[in-house]
């Protein structure tokens, strides 16, 4: 499978889209920089080290923490559902919805549910599932995929939104953003209050207290997990951290890395249905622990660190490649640098073998990752694996290696190469398609050195 060249070309040629992607990721990048600057947040590097260590530890003893979580959730009156696959997770929800006659479901943003195509599966059973995160809601109406992990509709303008609302909700065309948001508030409020099930993801799962932690700015997650009678959390196995007391380290990193905020508007920690005497909150509480390939990543000690990801999006905002091609040109739901690393592991390296090569290895992602995932190093490991299976350039590198061990041959070959630089063949043509190539210097350094030393 080769790269989606023509789709990428279209994205690069779309000046409005280029501006939207570059300036919006730039803004988030700058907010993050300011928030973690040494004079403002001197503990930043220390927290990164701690967070990476906590995640590494949790993953190394994941079996223990999973059981601890289950125990705590049970103690709180909730139930843990173990799902080996996305289908199992969806099937559980479908069955639950049917048993409870809950035809309307509200959802807050969850990459994990997108990963398993939950909405599509639910739709097949005539269950109305409404996305309540504003950007996701707009995309759902428009029938599009999210563009960015945090700003899903980053590629849409107010005019696009007005059109969607007009066409899908029968609302008069209105391009005032505040009005658009209030329209969504009004429409979705009704859904929250009438839905039979609320589905969320989880930013963190607290093993000691059975807590599901969700951070957000809008309030739709709070409504999703508080208003309907049933709350279902869908979370990957890797979301666990040992204790509630570990939370400040992660929260301090998450908000700042994502948008530059020390804390988002709402951080919810919930576990179990409403307690005796509580006047609201769900009556049933489920945590679906999802494998769907995570145990495969867990088994590779070199690649395991990719599971440390806390989905902050900082790597997307820092990546010069993402900032050009945007989220839609990545083959899977997870885009950006972390997407490049986990997509081949979940889907097999042979599916999109170009993906780990679509990087200049600049290292900006590793620099900003709050849990110190060394993405460039993981990309190199994937590249090694891919060429082992499919060594299409091996003969070129064999010749290259042969020459490079023989300085005389190298010098001769290079001389010939320099003479051919004017031609437009192969990689030279590819280079020239985008920029000029300098004229070859008449003498190499070695030539000049010989002259100088005479």
């Amino acid at each position, binding site marked *: 499978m080769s*790269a989606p*060249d023509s789709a*990428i*070309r279209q994205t*690069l040629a779309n000046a409005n889209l*280029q501006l939207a992607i*570059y300036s919006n990721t730039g803004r988030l990048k700058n907010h993050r920089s300011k928030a973690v600057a040494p004079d403002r947040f001197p503990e930043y590097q220390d927290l990164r080290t701690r967070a990476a260590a906590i995640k590494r530890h949790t993953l190394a003893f994941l079996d223990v923490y999973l059981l601890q979580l289950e125990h705590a959730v049970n103690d709180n009156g909730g139930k843990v559902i173990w799902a080996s696959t996305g289908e199992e997770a969806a099937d559980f929800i479908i069955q639950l919805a049917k048993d409870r006659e809950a035809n309307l479901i509200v959802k807050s943003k969850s990459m994990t549910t997108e990963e398993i195509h939950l909405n599509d599966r639910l739709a097949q059973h005539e269950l109305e599932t409404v996305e309540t995160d504003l950007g996701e809601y707009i995309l759902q109406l428009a029938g599009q995929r999210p563009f960015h992990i945090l700003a899903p509709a980053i590629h849409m303008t107010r005019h696009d939104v007005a059109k969607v609302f007009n066409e899908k909700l029968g609302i008069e065309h209105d391009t005032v953003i505040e009005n658009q948001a209030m329209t969504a508030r009004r429409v979705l409020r009704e859904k929250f209050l009438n839905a039979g099930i609320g589905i969320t993801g989880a930013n963190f799962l607290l093993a000691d207290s059975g807590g599901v932690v969700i951070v957000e700015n809008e309030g739709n997650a709070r409504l999703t997990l508080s208003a309907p009678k049933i709350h279902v959390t869908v979370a990957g196995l890797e979301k666990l951290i040992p204790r509630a007391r570990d939370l400040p380290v992660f929260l301090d990193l998450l908000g700042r890395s994502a948008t530059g905020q020390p804390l988002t508007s709402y951080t919810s920690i919930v576990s179990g249905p409403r307690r005796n005497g509580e006047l609201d909150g769900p009556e049933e509480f489920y945590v679906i622990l999802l494998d769907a390939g995570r145990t495969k990543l867990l088994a590779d000690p070199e690649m395991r660190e990719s599971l440390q990801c806390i989905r902050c999006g900082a790597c997307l905002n820092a990546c*010069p*490649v993402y900032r*050009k*091609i945007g989220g839609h040109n990545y083959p899977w739901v997870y885009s950006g640098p972390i997407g490049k690393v986990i997509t081949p592991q979940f889907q097999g390296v042979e599916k999109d073998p170009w993906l780990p*090569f*679509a*990087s*200049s*290895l*600049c*290292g*900006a992602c590793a*620099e900003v990752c709050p849990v110190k995932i060394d993405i460039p*190093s993981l990309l*190199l490991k994937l*590249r*090694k*694996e*891919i*060429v*082992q299976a499919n060594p299409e*350039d*091996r003969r070129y*590198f*064999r010749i*290259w*290696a042969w*020459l*490079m*061990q023989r*300085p005389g041959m*190298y010098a001769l070959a*290079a001389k010939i190469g*320099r003479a051919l630089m004017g031609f437009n063949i192969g*990689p030279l043509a*590819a*280079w020239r*398609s*985008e*920029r*000029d*190539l*300098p004229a*070859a*210097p008449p*003498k*190499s*350094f*070695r*030539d*000049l*050195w010989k002259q*100088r030393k005479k």
Partner: protein
Amino acid sequence: MPRRAAIFVTCIVDQLFPNAGMAMVDVLERLGFEVEFRDAQTCCAQPAFNSGYQKEARAVARHFIDTFADAETIVVPSGSCTAMITHHYTDLFARDGQALERIRALTPKVFEFSQFLLGLPNLDALAARFPHKVTYHDSCHALRELGLKDAPRRLLGQVKDLELIEMEAAEECCGFGGTFSVKFAQISGAMARTKVDSILETGATHVVSLDSSCLMQLRGSLSRGGHKIETLHLAEVLASRG
């Protein structure tokens, strides 16, 4: 008795940007070093390593190690090649105990050019002069793997009549990335044009960097855009007498 410095010019400087290498020699000699050029040198093996061809990379890396093992000091006019040697050779030979020993003995002696200069006491002996508006491009490996942010800027600060103007996108990758530049030419080209926009905003007439690969990328994009801005290696600026 002058100190000796062996230079590893790197294949790209050797073949495409020899003036940068010569400028480095001038600078080192002016600072009192006897410069040694070992003829056996070729490449640090980064192209094969980055492409996943570890076996081929190891063969060429071994040649580098053999060539320079007994040198006292090795100076390199490239951040990415230096980082390949000092940061990635151990990955390449992770399972070869003997090679690892040799690498551990070698890498403390390998310096990127600006890294090397900053450790020297007599920099004002250079008496460099470069009366132009200059902007500096942080090459990725130099910046992130070698931690070189201030060092090259301090060196530029010592050059008479040089006006250094920072570009907004100084730390953003130029888009070269080795074979990435041709395998993903469209993306690479777009990344370069973003840098060019940022360069133009500064009003600088010259772009300086530690890596000739980056300079080749930027020069190619500047030239394609019809801009008359020059690109040069830090060594060329420091060797300049105005």
